[in-house]
């Protein structure tokens, strides 16, 4: 029995990646994503066939249920086209769905055919719909685009960075600072590289900003990993600059407007088949960007379940090469989230309500994004990406060889989770429970690898103090307080910050979170650093020190947003 080294399980180091890694698969022909795009046509056929099987089993192969599902899909799609059209929608949509409508009418009115013949006709209609969906979802990975995008990102970013940091005209050509200093990648990077050549990676990052996908794309490239495929909101393809990046990075399209069963099943089938194909994948398991600034605590389990299904299917098909699926949690840590004002506004207005996705944020035009990027690189704000320890599909940690280990370090066989009476069996209810468990494990790991910044600390402390001073108000009344009336004496604030920091250090000792090295500075400096950085580019700053030396806020909702980042650690018990 091999005993697994438990010590590195607890503490992430502060060492970040200071150079670009060599690619693990240097020849692009070997990239699974390239192989996939070469056999795009066959792959889509495969997805259509699998989706059909899936829907067949979900409707119990009953004529009535199948018909109702198709009619419902038709109804919803027609409503969507009427009520919520988007720029990216293809022009022939209305035509396609009227064809579906008349096909359904013909079959419905048919008196001659037997039940089985009718069923077959319905399945044909179903296949035409899933084919259309699969074509829309499928990524359009082009290697030349990928290379191009990669060099634009890397070159552009580092030019900007050096211009800003090293003064003078010639600095445009300086290489004193590299992007790796600005965006720090920490954590289990070696393990990730190792496992990427042993199995299929499913990376699950936290999601705060639309910038995340580009950032993750850059991270993957820096680590020398082949491109990952990932589901990006179709709405992002409305914006040209994103559409370009996304297509280049192997994004497949996810349309959140389409909530019908046929679409969701096609999407899940696509993701599952791609993982089975050996394509490393990326899901933002929170579904959308965190609206309130919390680390995701409830995950969308739909896409996550495809990782588990793919793993089971790989076991069913015998021991395949790259057959093991590894789940890698990642957190992205910011001082500043560009979209924060509109996100928190959304959250407060619509808490708990489902509604059509409404695009209204700062990333709405290419111009605004470029402006942000210039600001980002010319001013100080740092970003860090924490790579967590890889897990199997049940959330057990895996070693460098990719073997799952139980808490005592004993090797366990993942296949055993799918056995009943000695055989790998398909049990969707079982896999649903496994998915929930995996979701809980990912959330746990998010909290452990989350890297606390000075800005999170000051925002948390200040908001808690304001809340404490207004005990009788509920959250919404609190957020409606006029900002002019709120101030904290610096002494109180300082003392409370010290207390919270103490607790954070204790949690860090216990391995329950991670903290940025700048939190080791003297308290005064941490506070200054935090105040400088918290939401630094917002027109209204969430937290500043005014001329009298008091701590005040210009936008309490934003302060609440940044404070939420430290939610879930039971720190609120201190203040």
């Amino acid at each position: 029995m091999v005993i697994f080294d438990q010590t590195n399980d607890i503490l992430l180091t502060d060492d970040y990646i200071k150079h670009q890694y060599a690619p693990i698969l240097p020849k692009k022909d070997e990239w699974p994503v390239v192989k996939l795009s070469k056999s795009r046509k066959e792959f889509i056929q495969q997805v259509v066939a699998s989706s059909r099987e899936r829907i067949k089993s979900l409707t119990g192969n009953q004529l009535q249920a199948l018909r109702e599902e198709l009619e419902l899909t038709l109804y919803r799609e027609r409503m969507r086209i009427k009520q919520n059209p988007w720029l990216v929608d293809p022009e022939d949509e209305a035509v396609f769905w009227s064809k579906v409508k008349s096909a359904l009418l013909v079959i419905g009115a048919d008196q001659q055919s037997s039940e089985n013949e009718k069923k077959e006709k319905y399945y044909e209609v179903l296949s035409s719909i899933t084919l259309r969906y699969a074509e829309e979802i499928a990524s359009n990975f082009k290697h030349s685009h990928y290379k191009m995008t990669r060099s634009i990102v890397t070159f552009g970013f580092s030019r900007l960075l050096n211009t800003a940091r090293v003064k003078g005209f010639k600095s445009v050509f300086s290489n004193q600072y590299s992007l790796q200093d600005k965006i720090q990648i920490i954590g289990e990077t070696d393990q990730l590289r190792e496992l990427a050549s042993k199995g299929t990676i499913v990376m699950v990052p936290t999601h705060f900003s639309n910038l995340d996908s580009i950032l993750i794309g850059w991270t993957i490239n820096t680590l020398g990993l082949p491109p990952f495929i990932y589901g990006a909101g179709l709405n992002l393809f409305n914006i040209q600059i994103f559409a370009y990046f996304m297509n280049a990075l192997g994004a497949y399209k996810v349309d959140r407007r389409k909530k019908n069963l046929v679409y969701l099943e096609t999407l899940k089938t696509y993701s599952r088949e791609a993982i089975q194909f050996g394509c490393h994948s990326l899901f933002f398991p929170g579904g959308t960007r965190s609206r309130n600034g919390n680390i995701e605590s409830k995950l969308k389990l739909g896409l996550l379940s495809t990782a588990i299904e793919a793993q089971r299917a790989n076991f069913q098909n015998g021991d395949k090469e790259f057959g093991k699926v590894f789940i890698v949690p990642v957190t992205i840590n910011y001082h500043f989230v560009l979209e924060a004002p509109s996100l928190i506004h959304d959250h407060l207005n619509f808490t708990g309500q489902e509604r059509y996705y409404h695009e209204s944020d700062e990333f709405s035009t290419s111009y605004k994004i470029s402006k942000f990027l210039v600001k980002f690189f010319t001013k100080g704000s740092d970003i860090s990406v924490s790579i967590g320890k890889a897990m199997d599909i049940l959330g057990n940690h895996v070693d460098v060889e990719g073997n799952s280990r139980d808490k005592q370090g004993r090797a366990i066989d993942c296949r055993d989770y799918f056995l009943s009476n000695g055989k790998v069996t398909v049990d969707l209810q079982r896999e649903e429970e496994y998915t929930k468990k995996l979701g809980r494990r990912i959330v746990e790991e998010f909290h452990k690898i989350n890297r606390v910044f000075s800005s999170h600390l000051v925002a948390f402390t200040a908001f808690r103090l304001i809340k404490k001073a207004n005990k009788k108000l509920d959250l919404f009344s609190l957020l409606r307080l006029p900002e002019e009336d709120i101030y904290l004496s610096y002494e109180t604030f300082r003392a409370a910050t010290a207390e919270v920091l103490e607790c954070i250090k204790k949690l860090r000792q216990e391995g329950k979170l991670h903290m940025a090295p700048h939190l080791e500075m003297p308290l005064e400096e941490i506070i200054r650093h935090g105040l400088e950085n918290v939401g630094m580019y917002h027109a209204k700053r969430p937290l500043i020190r005014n001329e009298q030396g008091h701590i005040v806020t210009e936008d309490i909702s934003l302060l609440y947003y940044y404070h939420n980042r430290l939610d879930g650690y039971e720190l609120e018990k201190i203040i």
Partner: protein
Amino acid sequence: MDMNWKKSSKIKPIGVIGIGSFGAAIANLLAEKNDVLVYARDQGVVDAINEHHMVKNRKLEEKIQATSDPEMLCDVCDIMFPMIPSAAFREVMVQFAPFLHPYHFLIHGTKGLSLNLPKGKNLENIHQIKRENICTMSEVILQETVVERIGCLAGPNLAKELLEDQPGATVIASRYDEVISEGQRLLRSDNFQVYGNSDIVGVELSGVLKNIIAIAAGALSGMGLGDNAKGLLVSRGMVEMIYLGNAMGGETKSFLGLAGIGDLVTTCNSTLSRNYTLGFRLARGETLDDIVSNMEEVAEGINTVKLIKLYLESTDTRAPITENLYKVLFENFKVETALQYLMKYPIYTDIDFL
């Protein structure tokens, strides 16, 4: 029958871990359809089963074999039923963990709680007991082993009646449908009905919390009080169970089922129940230590009262019956004083949880 299941037959025996009165009853039920292999720590008990088919004056089916080797049990069985008192449960799971695999199913029948404190903490130096510190047995299994497919048995299952093959029923609860259907297939018989429930924590807590009320019911009878008082206690006890159960993560409807009301009514009226007997003897003036020292098996209720009392101190939930019973058990309160206190307790709403 030889012990070479691996070679001789494709049908694997069902494992039973621990052979107290309930374990014996379940082993006999299982033996109606399957080979059964029992684990017992004590080699004397193992020999008695293998040679005489007897365990502490209880007759076991001839098909039942025994072993004292955990590794062997885990090797030959895919499905096992841990039937061990809560005080030993964690220790046994730790002992079994190296031999358990994710393909195993564990269905336990223990109606107790287990304390789980962080390293270096004990009841003296910890100031607050949180929910995560008191675990149901399924939570213990999850913490200590890799077994994921876990179930529990709960319901009015007085071991003596089961051993006499009287009609009865049980609830098998699991998050996994396959565990419920396996359990039903194995246990269901002409005289024994098996219901399923997906809220395992709710069902476990029903079985755990009803022991508190059972002690109180015994105490009422011991005082010579009548059926009005019993009715009052059972219904208020039910409300208390639901409040506590909800706070600890169980669903209300599980407490209204066979494992909740069903078990509660049975235990509160039966002299066969250890917890009831404990309460009865307390009210007759015996001390806790005396009673415990001459009971054959532990009354789980004692430990449950202790842990729930600690948990209550860190929450806003009130549980007057449990709090007063704690005083009777551990602070030399008289049963009569506790009863008076309860009669004056200011709650006047009958039902406010539905």
